């Protein structure tokens, strides 16, 4: 009898260990292998700057209300209150101690596209790597090169202040298993080159879907409602639908959308409001061809 109990206990232990091993295998941080980031040419700084504005880095990583050249000091420190706790934005200036000056391209690239920090830890998806995941290694390299040209700041940002169990980074492996994807968000029928460029900008560096797509209770994007708008994750009000089915911008032409992104004016000369003001100001630095591409893509996605 004792021997049967022991055997059962052993079998139980094996199942638990095997289960834990499988769970760990599925949810461990998964950076790209080193060769993914090897063999890239010297960074194209002009392209890096375009990606810097498309990605909206300043809106979180610069000081609040920074203007002009102050916007290029990515000292971090801003607090982002959320349902999970308060995130404190890190310093990504080239300071080797307080910032990312000592990071390698692979470390930067794995943070951007895999949500894995330099210690091999999971990063919180408040940093929109689940969008940046679509960025090409070349673009990541160009952006990294550009960020290194910006002023260094010695500011040391506070650690995140999150409630249990969100303060355990290991839980992020499960979140990634459920919601992380580098695949296209929508299947487009024979998209033109300009629509493809728009898809890259909107779904990748521009990370538009992070606010314009509604989320479920676990903070995952409801991708069947891609860009359909929803409650504002940062407070009062709603984020508008920006698909062709939108009641606000569905009637706008591609030219109207591109002009809005460039100037901040709607077709009837109303202005952008809320957090979109900063987004629009960032996007106004993009080449007009890129704004036209974003507009073309927004007209090509399914109406919601």
């Amino acid at each position, binding site marked *: 009898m004792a021997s049967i109990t022991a055997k059962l206990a052993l079998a139980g232990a094996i199942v638990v260990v095997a289960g834990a091993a499988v769970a760990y295998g599925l949810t461990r941080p998964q950076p790209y292998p080193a060769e993914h980031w090897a063999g890239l040419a010297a960074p194209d700084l002009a392209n890096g700057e375009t990606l810097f504005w498309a990605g909206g880095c300043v809106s979180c990583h610069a000081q609040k209300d920074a203007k002009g050249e102050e916007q290029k000091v990515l000292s971090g420190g801003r607090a982002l209150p959320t349902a999970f706790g308060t995130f404190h934005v890190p310093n990504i200036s080239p300071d080797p101690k307080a910032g990312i000056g000592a990071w390698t391209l692979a470390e930067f690239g794995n943070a951007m596209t895999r949500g894995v920090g330099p210690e091999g830890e999971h990063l919180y998806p408040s940093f929109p790597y689940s969008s940046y995941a679509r960025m090409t290694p070349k673009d990541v390299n160009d952006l990294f090169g550009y960020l290194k040209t910006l002023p260094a700041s010695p500011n040391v940002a506070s650690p995140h202040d999150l409630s249990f169990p969100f303060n355990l980074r290991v839980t992020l492996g499960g979140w990634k298993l459920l919601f992380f994807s580098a695949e296209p968000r929508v299947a487009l029928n024979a998209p033109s080159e300009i629509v493809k460029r728009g898809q890259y900008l909107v779904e990748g560096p521009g990370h538009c879907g992070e606010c314009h797509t509604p989320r479920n209770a676990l903070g995952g994007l409801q991708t069947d409602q891609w860009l359909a708008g929803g409650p504002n994750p940062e407070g009062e*009000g709603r*984020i508008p639908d920006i698909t062709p089915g939108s009641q606000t911008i569905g009637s706008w032409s591609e030219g109207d959308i591109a002009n809005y992104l460039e100037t901040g004016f709607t077709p*009837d*000369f109303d*202005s952008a409001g*809320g957090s*979109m*003001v*900063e987004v629009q100001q960032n996007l106004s630095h993009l080449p007009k061809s890129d704004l036209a591409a974003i507009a073309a893509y927004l007209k090509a996605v399914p109406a919601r």
Partner: protein
Amino acid sequence: MNLKRVSTAVMALCLGAGMAFAAGEPQAERQALMKKIGGSMGELGAIAKGQKPYDAATVKTAVSTISASAKDFPNHFPAGSETGMDTAASPAIWQNMADFKAKAMKLSTDADTVLASMPTDQASVGQALQTLGADCGTCHQAYRLKR
């Protein structure tokens, strides 16, 4: 009879007062002012885009309307008007009333500056529009719920 007449008169008075009250709701007043500013921006925009020819009188009227409306605008946010009538006003207005007033006043004074050196062609109307439009964006960023 007399009583009936009096009650009819009272009813009419109440009804009249009620209508005047509805039109005078602060939410409606401030929405009307924003519509006036938006319409004036549209007039300037049509010239800046070249959809309409430059016309000094149109520009002057539009910029004057913006100046006057922006000056009056913050007077229509009394306590109790935080919600209702589809208001897009952010609660932050009532927490930062002095800053809110300063931002509205900046649009008014920037419009006065434009009037002082009147735009003379399509290009300078475009520049004025950029200045005034930046004021719209700055205030809407902080104080309007609608994106």
